[in-house]
């Protein structure tokens, strides 16, 4: 596992009596899409929260490029190259689309203790942000206040903000949540195009998307990883089938 | 010296209980409604003014005190229904502004009705005497009575919160608001109940303390800010935290005023100590709050 970019070692997270993460050891390799699936309440979002630094684990370690980052706070991890999107859309609602992405660019240009120059007229922030929005097809919506974007557009913006900092790892917490079938298909295509350029941890309920995208899949049940493997291996795994209680549709 | 110490310790406990009566209701209002109510101190003040008038009107101290308590309670509930309940869904800035406006209004209103000068309430002779609580230690009977009443109220509150179903809902609400509404409990009813409870306690404090302190416009805010310090130290939503912090601060504040000048004399000249000592004593509880914040930003019993 020496080739892992981001990994957890025997991670535990307890909330009172509830064990949300139970001895979780997973590794995300450079360039791969690693999907994290499991029934509701399996602890997927809790795992993402710990990887991103939003939650501190009760025990265990998190390593990034072999370096222990367990105690490191969220902003520091973000600047190391761990970017994330949120399950519930989290953008700056009263800013424009371009502002949102420009802020992400700004976060990765060193400290922001710069008090004088107008940030909205700074080409080193605006140009890369515009470029990225154009690539993602959000260009025409650059000057719209984000609260007025459609749900699908907001989800895309989430990804754009995560990408703007040129991260090493993307943690995507249900990027297709609440999307219509058409928007979902677009997102899958989009993520497919990104594939290989950076490692991704994909938490997703949409099994079509997961099996279309993932290189490897880890199945989480009650906070515990019951299987890790290629999509074919996971399909064939009896324990996984049991966990989903005969949910044949997951392999549909 | 030991008489002085005992007397001041009792004063400290009494001050702590006074702050607790305000802080207990307020910490629940903050915890359950996530609402900043600066006008809580006004209820304390109005309780005291009501006591002044009603004792005078009825000619009976006990009857006046009882009537004043219920009048303040009614006043608090009317205030909640007509103004404060419209603020629950607003952000903190709205709540701060609106309740700040209410304070300005109430503080002036009492001056218009009762006059700008401070008022005092005379105790009936049977309550104005001192009794010997320990051999050679006399203590005012009235102060002793209100300490005992406050303790009884604290015990009653403890029973309500830990031993009854209503109390369970209040506790659940203070630690997790969403859960209570998810349980299908009528949250509005709970809000009114908690607010009424808080108003009643604040009014009771004002009514009881009126005879031993001057009744004046603005008397509520001094205690209110001390109650804030108690809530910050104890943790929002924790009545137990408020109780412990109140007693601690009451004692520290009272004994600090007694001893700090002497303590300062150990490290500086007598003249400097007599200036620094009292100033430091009045800042003491805030310094303790700062220390607690460094150590536990959400208070001793707050949820993190």
């Amino acid at each position, binding site marked *: 596992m020496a080739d892992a970019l981001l990994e957890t070692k025997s991670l535990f997270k307890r909330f009172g009596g509830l064990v949300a993460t139970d001895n979780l050891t997973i590794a995300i390799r450079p360039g791969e899409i690693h999907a994290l699936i499991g029934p509701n309440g399996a602890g997927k979002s809790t795992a993402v929260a710990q990887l*991103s630094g*939003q939650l501190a684990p009760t025990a265990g370690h998190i390593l990034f490029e072999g370096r222990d980052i367990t105690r490191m*706070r*969220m*902003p*520091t991890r*973000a600047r190391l190259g761990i*970017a*994330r999107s*949120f399950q519930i859309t989290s953008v*700056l*609602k*009263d800013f424009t689309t371009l502002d949102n992405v420009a*802020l992400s660019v*700004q*976060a990765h240009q060193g400290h*922001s*203790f*710069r*008090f*004088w120059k*107008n*940030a909205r007229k*700074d080409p080193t*922030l605006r140009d890369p942000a515009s470029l990225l929005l154009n690539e993602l097809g959000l260009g025409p919506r650059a000057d719209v206040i984000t609260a007025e974007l459609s749900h699908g557009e907001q989800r895309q913006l989430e990804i754009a903000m995560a990408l703007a*900092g040129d991260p090493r790892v993307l943690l995507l917490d249900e990027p297709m949540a609440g999307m219509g079938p058409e928007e979902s298909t677009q997102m899958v295509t989009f993520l497919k195009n990104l594939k290989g350029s950076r490692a991704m941890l994909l938490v997703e309920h949409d099994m079509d998307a997961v099996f279309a995208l993932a290189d490897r899949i880890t199945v989480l049940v009650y906070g515990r990883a019951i299987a890790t493997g290629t999509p074919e291996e996971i399909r064939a795994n009896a324990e996984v089938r049991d966990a989903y209680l005969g949910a044949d549709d997951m392999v549909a | 010296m030991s008489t002085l110490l005992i007397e001041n310790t009792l004063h400290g406990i009494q001050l702590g209980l006074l702050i607790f009566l305000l802080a207990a209701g307020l910490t629940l209002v903050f915890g359950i409604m996530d*609402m*900043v109510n600066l006008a809580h101190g006004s209820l304390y003040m109005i309780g005291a003014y009501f006591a002044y008038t009603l004792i005078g009107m009825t000619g009976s101290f006990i009857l006046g005190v009882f009537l004043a308590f219920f009048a303040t309670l009614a006043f608090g509930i009317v205030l909640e229904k007509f*103004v404060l309940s419209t*603020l629950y869904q*607003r952000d*903190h*800035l*709205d709540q*701060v*502004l*609106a309740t*700040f*406006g209410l*304070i*300005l*209004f109430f503080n*002036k209103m009492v*001056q218009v009705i009762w006059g700008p000068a401070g008022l005092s309430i005379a105790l009936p002779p049977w309550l104005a005497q001192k009794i010997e609580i320990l051999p050679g230690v006399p203590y005012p009977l009235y102060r002793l009575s209100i300490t005992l009443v406050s303790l009884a109220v604290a015990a009653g509150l403890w029973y309500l919160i830990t031993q009854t179903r209503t109390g369970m809902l209040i506790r659940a609400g203070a630690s997790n608001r969403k859960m209570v509404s998810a349980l299908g409990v009528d949250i509005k009813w709970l809000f009114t109940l908690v607010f009424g409870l808080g108003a009643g306690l604040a009014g009771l404090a004002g009514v009881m303390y009126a005879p031993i302190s001057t009744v004046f416009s603005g008397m509520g*805010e001094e205690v209110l*800010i001390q109650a*804030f*310090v108690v*809530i*910050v130290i104890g943790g929002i939503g924790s009545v137990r935290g408020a109780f412990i912090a109140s007693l601690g601060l009451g004692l520290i504040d009272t004994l600090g005023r007694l001893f700090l000048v002497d303590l300062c004399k150990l490290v500086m000249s007598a003249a400097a100590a007599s*200036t620094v000592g*009292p100033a430091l004593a*009045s*800042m003491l509880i*805030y*310094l303790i709050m*700062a220390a607690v*914040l460094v150590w536990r*930003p*959400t208070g001793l019993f707050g949820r993190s």
Partner: protein
Amino acid sequence: MSLDIRSWGVREIFNFLLITILALVPVYSWMSGNTFIITLVTRALVYAIAAMSLNLIMGYGGLVSFGHAMFLGIGGYAAGIMAFHGNTNGLLQFPLAFFVAGLFAMIIGALSLRTRGVYFIMITLAFAQMVYFAGVGLEAYGADDGMTLSRRSRLGPIDLADRNQLYLFCLAVLLFTVWMMGRIVNSRFGMVLRGAKSNETRMLALGFPVFRYRLAAFTMAGAWCGIAGALMANQAAFVSPAMMHWVQSGDLIVIVVMGGINSLFGPVYGALAFIIVEHQLSVWLKDTWQLVFGPMIVLLALFARNGLDDLFKLMGGRKDGRDG
């Protein structure tokens, strides 16, 4: 405010009129012999400067501080204590007020910003009360009663003892403050501050250590309010703990909200409105003016939370008025 007149909306026109009127107040006062108006408007200017500093953290940073007047007092006392000891050089007094208030703000901010929401409001109020008691404890400088400044500040050729010079100096500081705040809130730093108000978790996830930026803003706001405090000391030729009473902190919040939170010029309108309303009500109602003013604040909170900002929008100002 852009210098290109063609791009001006209602807001810019009003701002321009406001500056013109403010600049003409001394002329009017000189011609009419009415010296009271200049004293009154000087007070409004000082309040406006203090409120603008509060607006940086409250309007743009979303941090409701109920203790901002403590920095008014600290700045005032810094200048007053120097004057008491015979030093009336404003070139020393004002920097001292700035640095001492900034230092207090840094320490108090570092403690208060560890908390959120209701806690933050209570804690800033409590710290302000602590500083208030410290002021009451300053026996050498008048304790409760405060002290009168025997001589106002001199800054090189400018003598603040002269009513008109004081007025123009306050106006200059005010305009500089507007310009400076305009730069700050639109800078990278300002974007982080405003972003954190909008969505703190998102800003953390993007890689901004939000606490540091907020602390810097809190410190800057405190330091700048110290300047306002030194001006207030000069205006009244008097400092006392009352400068940092909690009602004063509340008044500053009211001023910011009245003028329209989130707008640069808002506190200037707010301060003028506040001073005028306070003055007019106390002319009509003598010392019972709070009976009307209190309910007015309640109504402001309930129905007109964006203050004059809404008015400008109604009159056809820019849709996105947050920067103007």
